[in-house]
């Protein structure tokens, strides 16, 4: 018995000592020769891992190029990236470690909205500037030194449906009956149902525009059997199917409909994994989605040789990593933007002082390769005027088709 209480006290003392003794953990340096360390987590395993991979390859490519060109402020840049296993609970712990224990100089956000929200709280506590690639729901991102690298403007829940409806309205025979499928996931459902008190989303906007919503189906993100959904859609036979879902949802729904011998007239998928849709071949032809960047020839020609080299290098790296889809598109471009926001802040403020970096970004904005010059308005939670486009699968490839000034090809309507 005495031993047991000794053990208890011992454990407590050890833990206490742990806490007390860690002050001398890692030295606090700031020498000119030391590399600048950037810390972040990515979902390299688990539910969000499919996209986490892309950000890892793009980020590594960015760091390599940066160092090849002399680094940042004459110092090498080192990227410490940790796997958060798509587990939201791990994210805050890992960022806490990166900042307060590993004492990284800079941080970048993780991937996926819930994770970004967790990381943002930690960054805010420590006053760190946090550029992030993929959270677009502006009202949630309240920290003024959080900088989005992908913007759908301040109200994405109404912007996306409006942009889509605007685009399809230009078709010779615009859709009248629509079906809305919604994944019950925080990253997608707001485009159908709105967010918080703002109830405007695809469902309400469709009604405002006089469209007939013939099917409204919400499905859990864990859905594996798509046949019942496909059958309902087939029976409703809409002119346009909107799938506000993620990952392989759109591909699975398309395939399930194909298996029912049903070819949808036109379909839109919100945030699909691009590869699996292309793998469907002819079935996915004409599919619509949102995009921030597609490496279409006209676009690349406009951006210049640097952009072409970056996208080509990415493809090579992605092939080496055996990614199924190796094209540098929206996610990779968002990643690139985030890095450029971060490095611009350091360059323009002349150091890694977080407050200065944050202020500099608010004052001067940042220059990016793929989205041009960005300005950050703290009132809109730093969400810059969007460059969001609509893309379409044409002849087995993703092409930007809307709005006209950024389009690389013409939007195609349903095939007869």
């Amino acid at each position, binding site marked *: *018995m*005495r031993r*047991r209480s000794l053990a208890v006290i011992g454990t*407590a003392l050890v833990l206490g000592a742990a806490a007390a003794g860690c002050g001398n953990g890692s030295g606090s340096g700031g020498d000119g020769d030391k590399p600048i360390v950037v810390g972040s987590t990515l979902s390299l395993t688990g539910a969000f891992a499919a996209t986490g991979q892309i950000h890892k390859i793009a980020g590594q490519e960015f760091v390599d190029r940066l160092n090849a060109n002399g680094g940042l402020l004459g110092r090498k840049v080192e990227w410490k990236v940790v796997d958060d296993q798509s587990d939201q*609970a791990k994210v805050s712990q890992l960022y806490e470690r990166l900042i307060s224990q590993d004492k990284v100089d800079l941080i970048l956000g993780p991937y996926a909205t*819930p994770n970004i929200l967790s990381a943002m709280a930690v960054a805010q506590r420590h006053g760190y500037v946090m550029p992030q690639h993929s959270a677009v729901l502006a009202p949630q991102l309240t920290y003024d030194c959080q900088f989005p690298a992908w913007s759908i403007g301040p109200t994405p829940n109404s912007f996306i449906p409006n942009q889509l409806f605007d685009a399809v309205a230009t078709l010779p025979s615009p859709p009248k009956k629509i079906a809305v499928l919604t994944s019950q996931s925080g990253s997608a459902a707001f485009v159908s149902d709105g967010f918080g008190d703002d109830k405007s989303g695809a469902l309400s906007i469709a009604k405002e525009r006089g469209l007939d919503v013939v099917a409204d189906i919400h499905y859990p993100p864990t859905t594996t059997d798509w046949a019942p959904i496909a059958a309902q859609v087939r029976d409703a036979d809409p002119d346009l199917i909107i799938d506000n879902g993620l990952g392989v949802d759109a591909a699975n729904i398309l395939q399930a409909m194909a298996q029912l011998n049903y070819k949808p007239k036109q379909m839109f998928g919100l945030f699909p994994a691009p590869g699996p849709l292309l793998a469907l071949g002819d079935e996915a032809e004409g599919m619509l989605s949102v995009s921030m960047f597609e490496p279409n020839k006209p676009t690349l020609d406009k951006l210049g040789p640097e952009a072409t080299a970056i996208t080509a290098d990415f493809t090579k790296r992605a092939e080496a990593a055996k990614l199924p889809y190796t094209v540098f598109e929206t996610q990779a471009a968002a990643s690139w933007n985030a890095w450029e926001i971060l490095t611009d802040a350091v360059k323009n403020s002349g150091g890694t002082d977080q407050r200065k970096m944050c202020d500099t970004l608010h004052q001067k904005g940042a220059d990016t390769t793929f989205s041009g010059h960005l300005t950050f308005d703290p009132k809109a939670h730093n969400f810059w005027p969007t460059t969001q486009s609509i893309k379409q699968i044409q002849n087995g490839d993703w092409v930007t088709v809307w709005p006209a000034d950024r389009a690389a090809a013409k939007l195609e309507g349903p095939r007869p």
Partner: protein
Amino acid sequence: MIRRGGIGLLVAFLVLVAVGAFSDPLGLPSFYLILLGSICFWIAQATSWNILSGYSGYFSFGQAAYVGVGAYTTAVLSGRHGVNFFLTVPLAAVLCGLLALGVGAVAFRLGSLRGEIFALLTLAVPFILAAFARINQSIDGGQGTTVPVPEVPDAFGSLPELQYLLALLIAAIAVAAAYAIQHSRTGSALAAIRDAEDVAEVLGVATFRYKMLAMLISGVLGGVAGSVYALQIGFVTVESVFGLTIPLFVIVMGVLGGRTHWLGPVIGAVLIVTLQDRLSSYGLDAWNSIILGGVLALLVAVSPDGLYARLRARPLVSLGSLVVVGGGLAVLNVWGEFLDWLVVGMLVAALLAIVLGSRWATARLPLGRRARTTAEPVPAEPAIAEPAIADPEPAEAEAGTPGDEPGAVLVECRQVARYFGGVHALEDVTLDIRAGELVGLVGPNGSGKTTLINLLSGAFRPTRGVIRLDGQDITRMAPHKIAHVGMARTYQIPRPFDSMTVRDNVAMAIMFGREPLPLHRARPIAERHLATVALDHLADAHPADLNLHQRQLLEMARAIASSPKVLLLDEALAGLNPAEVDNAVRVVRRIHESGITIVIVEHLLRVLNQLATRLVVLDRGTCLADGEPQTVLNDPAVIRAYLGRQAHV
């Protein structure tokens, strides 16, 4: 002793509180607070799981249900309806408590649910709750809820400090609850349920009530911890709280640390969380799950008792290796940082404890501190030889002739029948047993003797008929109530509570008897009963260290400890050698002389012939003969039943 352990816990808690409160002056990076907070969360969850699954042996896969309901209560109420965070915590506790009681009422009402079926049933619960939350989008608005940061009271400083202190408080409450339960009657009851549930019931433990209590405590703790978890993650979705990760981790921690002791899950949680942090710090994330899975598989295969038991067996080696390895690394300071040293130290200590505790090592190394069965020879005969109890000239007075007072009728069986499907195990048995009798119950195999014992003790209910004990109708009573009326029994194959010492085995019967006593008062009485069966010298041993005869004596001691009016002995002499039989017979006589009426099932007619005051012969489920041993054994019908129907006498 209880107090000293409690003081240890209190000191540990205060040290950790101080660490949180003075983290700034200590120069403590906030990461350590977050890590400690995370450890505390998992300690609370693993402990909550352990109170049900470890203590009572009902393995649950449904921990996510409590975390989910707790987190959702807090997230939805504070995030969507503006309720104060601190008010949502007790609400989460209440909701999870109700949920636990509901699941328990469904699962335990159907008595036969055990093991994997209970596990699968609990696995289904979070699935249902998750689907429920998704169907009713009005609960979370269909896309998860942000948990607003509560106003941090001035005393707490920053939010991380508040989060840490909250997590610590809940972990402390959970561990204190686990500690208190383990050292209380409830803990003993749950351990007995885990070791042998129906024996516990027959001994007087109201098993249903205790299982429900464990469910309730587990649910409340899990829910409160889940509610604080919502604050930690900040944004709650169905996937993040109702998934498989939480039950998986909780099970790994519980199994790793050890399920029978309050400290087990604590050890498991500390080790797993810090190990995971170190692996990820060194970029070994791809190995994280492989190591976790490997640890689980290996540990269940090699040391199913968990680390705690192994560590406790060698506290000096364990603590020493932790201090030497961890401290050595710290002093050398050539590699890593504090957490690395701590984790390496803990791993070395754990590994040493496992290796040294393995069968291979105990057999080969002379270090055996308390090697079971082999090292501590328990001589059968010498121990029995002279029990130091007042027993003048054992059993000289009566050799077959009973106490001359017939006594009042104590047990009445009226037309009792029991069928199993189409098999008629007992058919209309009518029988009276009077106070002071020692009735031998005999009959060929399959004649229904054990069935009758099971009916009398309440293990089965009769298909037909009435049984009364001391005037009370016990026909449909729960076994533990029958025990309280005054019935006790032993089992043909002894069924001790393996996790308890011999003394505590007997003390169980006193703690849950007609006049319940706390453990510390039950123990001295237990020793008196052990002396009656001449087992007092083995009071500190565990049942596994006893031989068959000693285990059977333990059964008797445990049975008489509940001070029964009637004692049912089911083949208490089977498998013994002649010397042991003689000793057991002396013990039975002594028990009988102390005024307990006995019904004994036995094959050895030569023994019963001398011992019993009356013989009842069963054959094919009916009463064939009843009377004085000599008369009965000369009854032609009895001889036919035993020697075969062609016997000519």
